[in-house]
C-alpha cells in the first residue's frame, strides 16, 4: 500500500483521528468533571470531598466507572424494550455528534461546516428524544412526568438560547464556527463585550438546556425521584450521565466560540516580546501555569498517607511538568504549531471557566419551581432575546448606514435592552399563580 493509493481517503484521515480521540477521551473527561464538581461542591460547603480513592480523590472517576459497569442491568417489566434500549443511545449520540463542529483550536476541528453553529444546535435538539423516549419507555409515572417536564423546559429555553446566539451571529456575519472566531479576532474584542446581554441570556438558557441547577427540577433527587432516569441502572444510567456532561461541554464550547473568543489568547493584540527572542511573554503563561501546578503536586506528594497515593501524586506532577514542557516548547516553535497547541489550551481553559460557572451556580442558587421556570423562560428570556436581536440590528444599521462607531452604537442599544429587561423583570400578578403570603414583617 503505497502513499498514492491513499489519495482518495486523505481528506478523511485527520478528521477520523480527531473523532476517535474525542470519543475515547470524552468519557474520561466527563468522569473528571464529575470529580471536579464534587471537589468544588465540597469546597463551597467547607469540607474536603473525595479524598480516599486516589490522592485527593484523583482516581475516583475510575472507581465510579467500574462500579457502574458491574451493576445489574434492570429492565422494568412492562417497559417497551426496544425504546428502553434506544433512548440512552439517542442521548449519547446527539451529545457526541455535536463535537464534530466544535473548534478546539485553529487546527483541531473535525469538520468546519459552513453552517457549523446551526448544525450543533440541530444535533443538540435531538437530545430531547433521548429524554422523552426514556421517560416513556420506563412505564412509570415518575419517569413520564419527569421526562415531559424536562422536555418542555428544554424546548422553552432552546428558543431563548438560539435567539441570543442570533444576536452574536449578527455581529459575526457567518455561521461557520471558525469564521466566528476569526471575526472576533478581526473586531479585536470578544463578543461578550459587544453583546453582554446576549451572553447573559445564553448563559441562563444553556444552564436550563442541560438540566443543571437551578433548573434541575426534572432530575433532582427530592422531586420526581430521578425523573426520566429513575428506571435506568448501571451502564445505561451512565450513558445518560455521560450525555448530560457531554452536553455541558458542548454548550460551553458554543459559548466560548461565540462570546469568549474561541481559541484567541486574552489580549491577543498585545505583543510583548521577551527581549532578544521571538517569543511573546503572554505565550509563556500556559507553561508557567502548568509549572505551578506541577510544583504543587510535588509538594503534596510526600504528605500522602499511603505510598501508592504518593506515587500517583508524583505521577500527576510529572504529567503537569510534561505539559508545561510542551507548552513552553510550542511557544518557541513555528507559528503553525504554536497556534495549534496554544489555541487548544486557551479554548479548553475558557470552557473550564464556563463550566466552573455552571458548578458555582449549582451550589449557590435554590431550585426553581416548574411554573417559575416556565414563566422565566417564556415571559422574560424570550421577549428579552427578541428585543436584543432587534437592538443589535439597529446598532449594526447605525454603524453601517449612519457612520456611528460600533462600540457606541452597541452601548446605546444595550442600554435600551437593559431598560426593557428591567421592565420585564417587574413582578406582575399572573393568572393562576399563588398570591403572596402576608407576613408579619409587612409592617401592618
Amino acid at each position, binding site marked *: 500500500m503505497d502513499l498514492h493509493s491513499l489519495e482518495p481517503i486523505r481528506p478523511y484521515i485527520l478528521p477520523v483521528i480527531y473523532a476517535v480521540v474525542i470519543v475515547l477521551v470524552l468519557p474520561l473527561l466527563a468522569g473528571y468533571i464529575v470529580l471536579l464538581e464534587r471537589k468544588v461542591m465540597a469546597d463551597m460547603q467547607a469540607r474536603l470531598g473525595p479524598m480516599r480513592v486516589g490522592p485527593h480523590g484523583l482516581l475516583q472517576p475510575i472507581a465510579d466507572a467500574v462500579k457502574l459497569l458491574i451493576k445489574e442491568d434492570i429492565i422494568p417489566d412492562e417497559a417497551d424494550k426496544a*425504546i428502553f434500549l434506544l433512548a440512552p443511545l439517542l442521548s449519547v449520540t446527539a451529545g457526541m455528534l455535536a463535537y464534530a463542529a466544535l473548534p478546539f483550536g485553529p487546527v483541531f476541528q473535525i469538520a468546519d461546516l459552513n453552517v457549523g453553529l446551526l448544525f450543533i*444546535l440541530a444535533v443538540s*435538539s*435531538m437530545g430531547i428524544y433521548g429524554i422523552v423516549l426514556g421517560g*416513556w419507555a420506563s412505564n412509570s409515572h415518575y419517569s413520564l412526568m419527569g421526562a415531559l417536564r424536562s422536555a418542555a423546559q428544554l424546548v422553552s429555553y432552546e428558543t431563548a438560547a438560539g435567539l441570543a446566539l442570533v444576536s452574536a451571529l449578527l455581529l459575526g456575519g457567518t455561521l461557520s464556527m471558525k469564521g466566528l472566531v476569526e471575526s472576533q479576532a478581526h473586531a479585536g474584542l470578544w463578543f461578550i463585550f459587544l453583546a453582554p446581554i446576549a451572553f447573559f441570556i445564553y448563559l441562563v438558557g444553556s444552564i436550563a438546556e442541560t438540566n443543571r441547577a437551578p433548573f434541575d427540577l426534572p432530575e433532582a433527587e427530592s422531586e420526581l425521584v430521578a425523573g426520566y432516569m429513575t428506571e435506568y441502572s448501571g451502564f445505561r444510567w451512565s450513558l445518560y450521565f455521560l450525555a448530560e456532561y457531554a452536553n455541558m461541554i458542548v454548550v460551553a464550547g458554543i459559548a466560548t466560540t461565540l462570546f469568549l473568543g474561541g481559541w484567541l489568547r486574552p489580549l491577543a493584540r498585545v505583543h510583548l516580546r521577551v527581549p532578544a527572542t521571538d517569543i511573546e511573554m503572554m505565550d509563556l503563561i500556559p507553561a508557567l501555569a502548568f509549572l505551578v501546578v506541577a510544583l504543587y503536586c510535588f509538594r503534596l506528594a510526600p504528605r500522602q498517607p499511603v505510598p501508592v497515593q504518593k506515587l500517583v501524586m508524583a505521577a500527576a506532577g510529572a504529567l503537569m511538568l510534561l505539559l508545561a514542557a510542551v507548552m513552553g516548547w510550542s511557544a518557541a516553535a513555528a507559528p503553525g504549531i504554536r497556534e495549534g497547541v496554544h489555541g487548544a489550551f486557551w479554548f479548553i481553559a475558557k470552557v473550564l471557566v464556563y463550566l466552573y460557572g455552571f458548578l458555582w451556580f449549582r451550589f449557590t442558587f435554590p431550585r426553581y419551581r416548574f411554573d417559575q421556570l416556565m414563566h422565566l423562560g417564556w415571559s422574560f428570556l424570550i421577549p428579552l432575546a427578541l428585543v436584543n436581536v432587534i437592538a443589535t440590528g439597529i446598532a449594526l444599521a447605525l454603524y453601517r448606514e449612519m457612520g456611528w462607531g460600533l462600540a457606541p452604537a452597541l452601548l446605546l442599544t444595550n442600554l435600551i435592552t437593559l431598560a426593557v429587561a428591567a421592565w420585564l423583570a417587574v413582578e406582575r400578578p399572573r393568572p393562576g399563580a399563588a398570591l403572596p403570603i402576608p407576613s408579619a414583617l409587612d409592617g401592618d
Partner: protein
Amino acid sequence: MANGLLPQIVFYFFAALAVVSAILVVVSRSAIHSAIFLITSLLATAGIYLQLEAEFLFVVQIILYVGGIMVLFVFVIMLVNLDVSLHQLQFNRQWLVATVLAIVLGIHFSLPLWLDRGVVNLPPPSAATMQPNSEMIGQALFQNYMLPFEIASILLLVAMIGAVVMAKRRI
C-alpha cells in the same frame, strides 16, 4: 472516488433508509414506534438534502421538522395514549382498495419519468450558482420573497393562537 462510488453509496443508503422507515411508519402497530420511524425517515431526508448541496435546508429540516414538529407529535401521542389501542384494529375497512389505488397512482406518475429518463437527466449546473448557500437563501428570502415571508410569519402566529385555543381546557 469523490466522483463515482461514494455519492452513490451515500444516496442509496439514505434513500433506502427513508423508504424503509416510511413503510414502517405506515405499518407499525404502536404510535410511538411510528413516530420514531418518521424521525428516522426525516433524518434520512435531511441527508438527501445535504447531498443535494442544500446545507441550510439540511439543518432547518433537523431543527424544525425533527426537533420541533416531531417533538409535538411525541408529546401528543404520550398524552392520548390508550392501553386498549394496541389491541384494536389498525387498518380500516378500505385498506385493500386504498393500497391498490395508491400503487396505481404511483405507477401512473412514474411512467413518464421512466420513459423519458434520458431527457430529465440534464447535468447539474456548477455549484457556484448556489453557494454560499445560506447567504443566497437569505438574500432570496429577504429580497425576492419578502411578501411570502411575512405572510408565513402571520400564518405561524395564527397557528400558534389556534393551537393554544384548541388545546385549552377552558377558554
